[in-house]
């Protein structure tokens, strides 16, 4: 009924508007409608000819309103013959046009031709228009066992503001099972393909409605909303996280669902359902995950080669008409494949849309999270998108990372083109994260130092506190004494070493010099020791330790004297050129005493240490 009214409207328009337009004529139009997926693609090859005398450089394409509102993508390219597809095709600029005397029920786009058409010239180009939600399921509700039938409506004649000399239309269906189709003159059917035409000399604005009602059990995967988050880390990763809210956009499922039936004969009891989706991820994708709110979903398969990584995911349940599911997939990509630098600016070059095969996205939000410290952000997208900026606080951030948000509605796989985000970034900003970690650890150490240094006792005048203070002081002094004694012992060892050198080389002068240095050092040390001992003698809390310390000092002095005597004896012996054995005999007794004394001093040191 609706289409009849529309037809009538078109007819009146045709009568009113036909004489008004330019002198362009479409000499040949070949249209192919692909209904082999739930995304409808109409590919047309048009030959346009200028029959008038004025030069023309723009061609208008008309779409009826009901089609235009579902249109997701439109591209016009110069037609190239078969086998000439080597050169990259440059798309012709297409823009929405709004000429005055056009009916309101039509949406028009104008294609700019590469060069103006003079009288009699012709130009051939291809137009690809992609429509979403253009297939209407009839019946609208089916049970699990039913097959899904959909209806597609269009015109057998090409709706154009120009007269068309020769035209033909072919409709490609997924299956040869066709419920019904409009039969006009010159209608042929070949398996799963219906052909209309050729029709000749059709006037402008001609509309001849056709409807095809056919079986389509292809997955009607529609994402209500897809949020893609692309996070760049200059430490070597581009992390992509995609949050899907998926719905089966076909005929609504009614009645009950039997898992048993579905499991037993999935092709009969559940033909309209889809069980899995395929995502073609970029090559070298790693750390791929697939999960939803309640955790990991284990039904996924990943395989990869050098050209792509293929991820096959199964939702938790088979998707019937109208059923929804929400899930998240994420993957990491190597930085060097997607991030580049030119003219001092860095840019991300990555695909815009979802990697899923044949997925319609109603609302796509792409968030590009740049590292902290990026500035001068700009976006270059191949089609118009809504954009704004946000900030996101993530790991180890201070003031948040700049986020570029791009939004586009009605997205089809044809939109999966590369886009660029340009920004300035200083290499030094990379050090922010490690510096934060370092300062965190450093504050911890400083806190420890402060805690160890702070005096946190409450009553600073109590007897026990004062006693403790004094005892600490005594301990500090004793430690210093120990320190000095051990330095003395080291000096003794040096002297012994010099004697060994003497016995080896016979160099008396060097040995004497060592003796002199040791003398000076020991004198200094004993000078240092004096005030410490005086302090210990005057301090009441040192009374217990004092005898031991004094004993230690006395023993050390004795040891020192013995060492000196031994040293003198040996050097004397060398000077008198005595034999090595003689010298050894002379010092043998002294050596015994020395060893005993050394042992005593060491014991004392150990004892004091334990206090």
């Amino acid at each position, binding site marked *: 009924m609706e289409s009849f009214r529309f037809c009538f409207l078109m007819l009146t328009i045709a009568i009113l508007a036909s004489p008004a337009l330019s002198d362009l004529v479409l000499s040949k139009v070949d249209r192919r409608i692909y209904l082999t997926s739930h995304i409808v693609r109409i590919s047309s090859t048009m030959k346009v000819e200028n029959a008038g005398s004025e030069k023309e450089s723009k061609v208008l394409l008309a779409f009826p309103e009901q089609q235009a509102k579902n249109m997701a993508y439109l591209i016009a390219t110069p037609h190239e013959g078969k086998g000439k597809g080597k050169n990259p095709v440059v798309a012709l600029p297409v823009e929405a046009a709004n000429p005055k005397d056009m009916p309101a029920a039509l949406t028009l786009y104008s294609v700019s031709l590469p060069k103006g058409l003079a009288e009699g010239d012709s130009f051939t180009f291809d137009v690809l228009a992609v429509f979403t939600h253009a297939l209407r399921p009839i019946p609208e509700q089916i049970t699990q066992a039913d097959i899904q039938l959909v209806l597609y409506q269009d015109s057998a004649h090409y709706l154009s503001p120009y007269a068309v000399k020769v035209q033909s239309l072919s409709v490609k269906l997924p299956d040869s099972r066709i419920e019904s189709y409009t039969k006009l003159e010159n209608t042929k059917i070949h398996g799963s393909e219906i052909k209309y035409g050729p029709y000749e000399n059709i006037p402008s604005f001609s509309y001849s409605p056709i409807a095809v009602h056919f079986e389509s059990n292809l997955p009607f995967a529609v994402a209500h909303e897809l949020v893609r988050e692309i*996070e760049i*880390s*200059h*430490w*070597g*990763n581009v*992390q992509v996280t995609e949050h899907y809210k998926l719905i089966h956009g076909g005929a609504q499922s009614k009645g009950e669902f039997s898992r048993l039936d579905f499991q037993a004969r999935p092709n009969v009891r559940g033909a309209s359902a889809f069980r899995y989706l395929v995502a073609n991820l970029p090559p070298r994708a790693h*750390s791929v995950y697939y999960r939803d709110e309640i955790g990991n979903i284990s039904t996924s398969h990943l395989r990869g080669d050098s050209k792509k990584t293929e991820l096959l995911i199964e939702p938790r349940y088979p998707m019937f008409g109208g059923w929804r599911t929400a899930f998240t997939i994420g993957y*990491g990509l190597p*930085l*060097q*494949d997607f*991030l*580049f*630098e*030119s*003219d001092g600016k*860095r*840019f991300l*070059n990555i695909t815009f849309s979802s990697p899923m095969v044949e997925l319609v996205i109603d609302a796509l939000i792409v968030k590009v999270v740049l590292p902290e410290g990026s500035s001068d952000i700009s976006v270059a997208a191949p089609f118009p998108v809504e954009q704004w900026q946000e900030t996101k606080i*993530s*790991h*180890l951030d201070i003031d948040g990372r700049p986020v570029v948000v791009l939004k586009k509605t009605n997205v089809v796989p044809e939109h999966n083109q590369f886009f*660029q985000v340009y920004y300035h970034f200083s*290499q030094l900003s*990379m050090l922010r*994260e*490690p*510096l934060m*970690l*370092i*300062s*965190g*650890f*450093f504050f*911890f*150490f*400083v806190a*420890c*130092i402060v805690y*160890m*240094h702070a005096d946190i006792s409450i009553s600073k005048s109590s007897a026990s506190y004062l006693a403790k203070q004094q005892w*600490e*002081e005594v*301990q*500090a002094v004793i*430690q*210093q004494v120990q320190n000095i004694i051990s330095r003395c012992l080291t000096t003794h060892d040096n002297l012994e070493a010099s004697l060994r050198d003497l016995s080896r080389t016979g160099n008396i002068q060097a040995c004497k010099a060592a003796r002199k240095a040791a003398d000076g050092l020991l004198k200094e040390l004993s000078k240092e020791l004096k005030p410490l001992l005086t302090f210990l003698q005057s301090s009441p809390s040192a009374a217990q330790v004092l005898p031991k310390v004094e004993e230690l000092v006395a023993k050390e002095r004795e040891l020192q004297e013995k060492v000196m005597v031994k040293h003198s004896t040996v050097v004397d012996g060398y000077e008198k050129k005595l034999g090595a054995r003689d010298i050894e005999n002379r010092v043998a007794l002294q050596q015994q005493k020395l060893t005993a004394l050394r042992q005593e001093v060491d014991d004392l040191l150990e004892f004091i240490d334990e206090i």
Partner: protein
Amino acid sequence: MAPPAKPITSPVSDAWYPTLALLMLSIGLVVTASFFIYEATSLKRNRCLAKELITGGVASVFLGFGSLFLLLSAGVYV
């Protein structure tokens, strides 16, 4: 896209992250241990603040970079 676009790589190859994390964390932990040994054994009056700060600083540099590389090798790209 201008032709002289050169790809950007990370300053350290990501194959090195686990090794670097292990190496730097172990050095950091050894220095931390020496810091605490010093804190616990030396007397309050004989402690040298500069030495404490230097040991703490060195330990925090190693622990900081070590934990960064640990995060990176675990897949948390900061």
